[in-house]
């Protein structure tokens, strides 16, 4: 197996569910709420692979299930069904969804980084910027303050945060700076997989550009595999090699990003591309 991440048959259902939930929802019905029992099918039948150093985009409108999907990947939410294999964990032979919460936490801390849309989800805004990075390092059993501070300086330099602000609290930072601290934190343990959920939404255009530049640079320098979730096709076009298009909790189209941008096959993808300003 040379793929770093394999996802098979992942679904997440909110509600008690019935036999027809999966059948009666999806893009062909234009809904994700089961008309029989009222259950919400946030995502279903999701499967894909990510290769080393590859950047995978997940695009779709609000409510298409892309954020739920990424939350299940970071164990923020438990999926209803599905399998998840990571090359860096037991040679990719164990389904990590089946592990104990202690083991999941190990994977979360050592093998993954997550950058949320809203910095307050990924950061503790009233701890110092350095403290936030330290948290991730302490989770991985670092026990030397001097070493922790060196690593934090290195990461903050990489993400272009002035070192003098290292001991300041991110709540006094601008949105773009908070987002960069979040990226530093996510990268602290050199994770092989980085998850990015709508990282530039809510930032002004010039800051968006610098954050996107940073992410591109990190991907190139560190060879990290990334999963980028966005509703914004320009972000997807700039960052990703391959793209998955989601609607009503299902994958409707996937392929090379350029191909999807130039020659969308599914009617919904065509609509999305045509809606680009």
């Amino acid at each position, binding site marked *: 197996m040379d793929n770093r991440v394999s996802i098979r048959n992942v679904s997440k259902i909110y509600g008690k569910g019935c036999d027809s939930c999966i059948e009666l929802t999806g893009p062909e019905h234009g809904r994700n709420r089961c008309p029989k029992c009222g259950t919400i099918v946030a995502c279903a039948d999701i499967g894909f692979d990510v290769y080393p150093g590859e950047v995978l985009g997940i695009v779709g409108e609000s409510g298409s299930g892309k954020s739920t999907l990424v939350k299940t990947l970071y164990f923020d939410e438990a999926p209803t069904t599905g399998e998840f294999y990571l090359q860096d964990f037991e040679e990719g032979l164990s389904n990590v969804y089946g592990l104990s*919460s202690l083991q999941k*936490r190990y994977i979360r801390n050592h093998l993954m980084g997550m950058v949320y849309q809203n910095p307050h989800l990924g950061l503790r805004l009233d701890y110092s910027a350095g403290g936030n990075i330290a948290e991730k390092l302490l989770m991985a059993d670092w026990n*030397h303050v001097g070493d922790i501070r060196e690593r934090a300086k290195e990461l903050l330099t990489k993400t272009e945060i002035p070192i003098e602000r290292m001991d300041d609290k991110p709540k006094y930072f601008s949105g773009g700076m908070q987002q960069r601290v979040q990226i530093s934190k996510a990268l602290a343990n050199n994770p092989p997989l980085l998850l990015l959920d709508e990282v530039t939404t809510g930032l002004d255009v010039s800051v968006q550009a610098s954050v996107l530049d940073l992410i591109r640079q990190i991907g190139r320098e560190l060879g990290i595999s990334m999963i980028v979730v966005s509703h914004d096709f320009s972000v997807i076009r700039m960052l990703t090699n391959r793209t998955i298009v989601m609607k009503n909790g299902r994958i409707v189209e996937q392929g090379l990003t350029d191909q999807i941008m130039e020659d969308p096959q599914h009617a919904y993808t065509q609509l999305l591309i045509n809606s680009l300003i």
Partner: protein
Amino acid sequence: MSMYNYGFLDENTKRELRRKTLKAVAIPGYQVPFGSREMPVARGWGTGGLQVTLSLIGLGDVLKVIDQGSDDSVNACNLRDLISETSEVDTTTDTLEATVIQTRHRIPEEKMTDEQILVFQVPTPEILRTVEPSEQESRRMHAERDYSRLWVHLYEDIVEWKEIRISYDYPVLVNGHYICDPSPIPRFDVPKLHQAETLFLFGAGREKRIYAIPPHTDVIPLQFEDYPFNVESYESGCEKCGSTHTYLEESFDSNTGERYLYCSDTSYCGKQQLKGQHQPVEIGVGWNG
């Protein structure tokens, strides 16, 4: 005191307390919930320690009660009277003579043995409360040994003040799993918990928790490689007995404003003074041997 059941508590309550205490001993550092009873002392005044003591005391025991090292404080006197009257045991102020010692925020200076039990009164048993307000979340963190936030708390202290500023309630890792609150004993007393011969029981009446550090258990204070744990030190010894190896308290002369240091363990200080006057007195060894 025939109006009361032996040891004040009814037998069912004592049975529950003993069961919970056994569980606490079996899982070192784990906080076991118990149905804390209404006591004739206000909650927060030692009701947790009081209930634990009453559940394990029996005829033939010798009781000592200290409050911040002192046998003479109002709280210590009243708890001692209540326990000794309802359970008909002898009392002492001598650490060496006691079989059960109930304490508020100190460990005696003389080393305790495997024949003795030390019962701590605990105001706030949850060490994670400073970093996590939710009880449910704290319990999950304990279960998964997810203590990074406590560590960050210490890191932030070092960044801001160049040292860990926690002077009491110092977090300790017990038996390699649970981090627990050794009750508000000073840092000076924390090393005494490590690989001791004595059973340490902790009762928090208001918060309804019992936990324990059994004998011969590893108790390691949280520290960084480059910022090791340290205990209080003093520039001079006790004003009364001259000891330089004890935990001292500060006191000011209200007329002259002069500052004095005295032993916080009054019984030990008294013995040292007798020794200084060349009178016969038996003094136990310190915890370091």
